[in-house]
């Protein structure tokens, strides 16, 4: 495997073809393959079940043609025994396979595809290069229907009664992107039961899709037939008002749900981990990533259906839990790599060595490598050239170290593949020879030359010479750059003492890091104090009490109540925050910040709230059970202040909460009539089971739409609720003794915190994470993290998971004594700087500040720890007083001038 250079010759020569699972069977691949072009590791593997040699005993073509002898047919499977302190299960899910169910016609009709197949059809890197066409006849589709809940919310057919949580959003995404591909004429339609866009910014995406012409039809399609030989499909469905419709579509996409991966279930069973009735790994709401077995943790879709950000949150939470489990052994098995002392090159004239790699035949087969090397030898300051077969191979690397020493080289140029994959390797090599890593330069003569000009050998050679000349000219004036690191204060400051803040604090303290909690109110607990049970029925108050006790008594945790933050400064590893308690000010030094400022249910003036005593909100009924004695009917109204113009987001947890409470009322008072007036029931994931249970218990669900909201009026002996029933197509009047409102969840006031730490918030004042999918608890600036409702409305288990994730991410900073930062940073020349402040304005990372210098006014100052090296400051400075290390104006221009 170390020898494979991913040249692809083996796959070219391999005579055995098979279906390509990565492309969902829509394309063919060879028996020796990489799953996709960007695969990591980028190494070819043999599919034993398809390989002619393994199946029939002869062929070995790949072995013959492999230029690096990287193929070893004698390799055997072997068992490896590992001793580890902890295990994290993240083996994920399998998309539901609809072939078993003939009603979907997936196996029979070519133009019925699954959503995963459609992803590959859409992908520019997919089998059709992103060109959408029908599999039956290659025609571009004009109309596509998406069918939701295939393999989800369906006990009769597929045994998966849960909601898969993600399909509504991905169907919208696919329809929007398909529309981008196919243009204005394209008509996408999504057939759904409830539209579940409960994630952050999802509702806005849904609204945008509607305005872009995606048709949403609340119905389940019951019959799919082919209308003609071309494969056009006919769908029969009944609309909400009872009308039977028959409509033609060019393609149907089945929005398939999630099932636990079979191999994952097997692994879980082998490890003795308990599964829940749906074969997901069983967890508790209070310890959302702990399995039934101590030391074994779970994250992602193996624990239950969920989207990418939630999976990433749990991944970090599981790392945090494993970190707590293994805290005493931290750092015992990891080794730091050491390098020989760096030689000084400052005073010596450049002695450049140029290594022109053949890369087997990838470069050498097209460009004239000896000619390129000979050309390089003639360039000024070049004292040595060589043409290795594979510059990256182990032996070539060792030889390079020797040559650098023997030839006393002080700059190295490698003309080969691309610095994006190989620069770190060669930098390590020259460091092994005692040179600073930044005395290295690469010329990209494979990816951007021979591979893309393979038919023009002479031109490719000319270009390679030019690229080498540019690299050499740049190398001439490269300078050594010392490592840059900053110390880390191994403690955290946590803003907010709710369940998220406390969980984050405890999770850090249990790993041995100090934490300070700053809470505005007089006691810990936050919004969780109002909630009695999680949706799985676990007791929150009991957990909260234990948590407050542990936090209050933990030697590593300091709690500041009735306190506010008045000033903050610093950067990752080195923050200073000033906290005011009464009249006293505490200056706290800390390495990271976790923002857990929480949120609360909003108040409303709709539906007689505050005007009539029988109108309550959220957990009022739960907390005051006496309000339910002798009550004949209770009406829950959902989406009060959510999903409207003022708050264009879904508050995520209200459907589950109301459904849970409705069941509770039905269980305690079976004779009470319970109604839930809703827009879409969003009991995502396994919460769907509650929805089903509520219907079984006789809770009446009536859908309303935003333009026909229910009306609550005072009646002689209670309240009258008028609502238009879309199924009966008429207005109903419900007499209610209690009306309970699920008002929108809004973030606690956070402008001050946002301003002090320069943190972005979205239009609805929720904090904005660094990346919606991949960095759901990080802020864009290093060392700052977010969790709980401050980020978006979420349930207790989700808040706990995100708090643990924030602690896990924070631990990646706090575990170190110093942080290595890329030294390719901005550098201000203070003699030229006039302190105009333009750089401070434009820096996207807050990495340049203005500092007053005695007698000289203001001057710009770099905060290297925050600098990402983008160079915007350097290219904008009116006085050209800023330069970038390793990308100095002169270094870039050296290459530019050498280009022609």
């Amino acid at each position, binding site marked *: 495997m170390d020898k494979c250079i991913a040249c692809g010759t083996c796959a070219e020569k391999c005579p055995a073809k098979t279906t390509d699972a*990565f492309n969902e069977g829509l394309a063919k691949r060879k028996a020796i393959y*990489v*799953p*996709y072009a*960007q*695969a*990591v590791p980028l*190494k070819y593997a043999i599919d034993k079940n398809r390989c002619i040699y393994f199946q029939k005993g002869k062929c070995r073509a790949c072995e013959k043609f492999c230029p690096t002898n990287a193929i070893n047919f004698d390799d055997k499977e072997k068992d490896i025994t*590992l*001793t*580890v*302190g*902890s*295990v*994290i*299960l*993240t*083996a*994920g*899910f399998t998309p539901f396979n609809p072939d078993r169910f003939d009603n979907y016609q997936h196996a029979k009709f070519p133009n019925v595809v699954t959503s*995963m197949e459609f*992803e*590959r059809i*859409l*992908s520019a890197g997919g089998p059709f290069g*992103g060109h959408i066409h029908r599999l039956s006849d290659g025609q571009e589709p004009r109309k596509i229907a998406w069918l939701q809940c295939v393999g989800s919310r369906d006990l009769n057919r597929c045994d998966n009664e849960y909601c898969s949580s993600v399909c509504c*959003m991905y169907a919208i*995404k696919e329809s*929007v992107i398909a529309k981008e591909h196919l243009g204005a004429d394209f008509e996408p339609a999504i057939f759904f039961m409830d539209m579940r866009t409960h994630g952050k*910014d*999802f509702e806005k*995406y849904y609204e945008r899709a509607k305005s872009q012409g995606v048709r949403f039809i609340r119905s389940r399609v019951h019959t799919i037939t082919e209308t003609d030989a071309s494969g056009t499909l006919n769908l029969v469905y009944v609309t909400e008002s009872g009308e039977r419709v028959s409509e033609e579509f060019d393609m149907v996409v089945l929005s398939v749900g999630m099932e636990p991966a079979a*191999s994952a279930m097997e*692994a879980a069973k082998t490890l003795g981990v308990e599964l829940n009735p749906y074969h997901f790994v069983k967890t508790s709401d209070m310890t959302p990533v702990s399995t039934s077995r101590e030391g074994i943790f779970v*994250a*992602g*879709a193996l624990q239950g259906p969920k989207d990418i950000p939630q*999976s*990433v949150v*749990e*991944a*970090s939470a599981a*790392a*945090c839990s494993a*970190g707590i489990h*293994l805290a*005493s*052994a*931290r*750092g015992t*098995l*990891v080794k730091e790599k050491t390098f020989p002392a760096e030689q000084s090159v400052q005073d010596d004239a450049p002695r450049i060595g140029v290594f022109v790699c053949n890369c087997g035949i990838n470069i050498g087969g097209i460009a004239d490598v000896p000619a390129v090397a000979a050309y390089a030898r003639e360039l000024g300051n070049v004292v040595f050239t060589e043409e290795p077969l594979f510059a990256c191979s182990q032996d070539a690397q060792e030889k390079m170290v020797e040559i650098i020493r023997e030839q006393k080289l002080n700059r190295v140029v490698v003309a080969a593949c691309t610095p994006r994959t190989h620069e770190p390797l060669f930098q390590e090599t020259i460091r092994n020879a005692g040179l600073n890593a930044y005395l290295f330069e690469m010329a990209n003569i494979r990816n951007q030359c021979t591979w893309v000009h393979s038919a023009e050998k002479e031109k490719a050679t000319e270009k390679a010479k030019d690229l080498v000349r540019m690299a050499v000219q740049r190398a001439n004036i490269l300078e050594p750059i010392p490592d840059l690191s900053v110390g880390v204060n191994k403690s955290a400051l946590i803003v907010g003492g709710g369940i998220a803040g406390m969980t984050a604090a405890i999770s850090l303290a249990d790993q041995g890091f100090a934490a300070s909690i700053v809470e505005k109110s007089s006691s810990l607990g936050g919004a969780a104090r109002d909630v009695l049970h999680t949706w799985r029925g676990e007791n929150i108050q009991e957990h909260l009490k234990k948590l407050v006790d542990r936090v209050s008594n933990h030697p590593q945790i300091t709690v500041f109540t009735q306190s506010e933050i008045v000033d903050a400064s610093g950067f990752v590893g080195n923050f200073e925050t000033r906290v005011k308690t009464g009249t006293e000010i505490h200056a706290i030094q800390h390495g990271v910040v976790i923002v857990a400022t929480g949120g609360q249910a909003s108040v409303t003036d709709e539906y007689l709230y505050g005007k009539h005593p029988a109108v309550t909100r959220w957990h009022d009924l739960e907390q005051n059970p006496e309000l339910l004695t002798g009550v004949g009917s209770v009406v829950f109204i959902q989406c009060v202040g959510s999903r409207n113009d003022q708050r264009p987001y879904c508050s995520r947890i209200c459907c589950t909460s109301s459904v849970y409470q409705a069941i509770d009322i039905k269980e305690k008072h079976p004779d009470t009539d319970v109604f839930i007036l809703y827009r879409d029931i969003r009991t995502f994931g396994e919460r769907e089971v509650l929805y089903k249970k509520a219907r079984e218990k006789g809770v009446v669900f009536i859908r309303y739409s935003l333009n026909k909201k229910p009306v609550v009026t005072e009646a002689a002996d209670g309240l009258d609720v008028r609502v238009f029933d879309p199924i009966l197509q008429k207005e109903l009047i419900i007499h209610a003794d209690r009306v309970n409102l699920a008002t929108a969840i809004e973030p606690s006031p956070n402008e001050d915190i946002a301003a002090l730490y320069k943190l972005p918030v979205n239009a609805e004042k929720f904090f904005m994470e660094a990346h*919606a*999918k*991949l960095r759901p608890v990080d802020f864009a600036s290093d060392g700052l993290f977010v969790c709980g409702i401050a980020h978006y409305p979420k349930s207790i288990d989700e808040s706990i998971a995100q708090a643990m994730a924030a602690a*896990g*991410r924070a*631990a*990646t900073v706090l*575990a170190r004594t110093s942080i290595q930062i890329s030294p390719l940073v901005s550098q201000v020349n203070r003699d030229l700087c006039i302190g105009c402040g333009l750089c401070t304005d434009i820096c996207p990372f807050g990495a340049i500040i203005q500092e007053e210098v005695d007698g000289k006014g203001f001057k710009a100052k770099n905060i290297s720890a925050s600098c990402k090296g983008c160079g915007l400051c350097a290219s904008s400075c009116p006085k050209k007083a800023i330069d970038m290390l390793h990308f100095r104006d002169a270094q870039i221009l050296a290459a530019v001038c050498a280009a022609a």
Partner: protein
Amino acid sequence: MSNKTTVGSVLVVGGGITGMQSALDMAESGYYVYLIEESPAIGGVMAQLDKTFPTNDCSM
């Protein structure tokens, strides 16, 4: 959790987006990580996706 026998390493089962994140976080916190994946490349299902909402970023 007895101190003497605690081993400072972790096994992550599955190389999708979740497994990769867990592995990175553990490695960056000072633990040795074994990441096992049944297919020849890490990336999981997410690598198969064309783009992701709400930003329509490419999922690579």
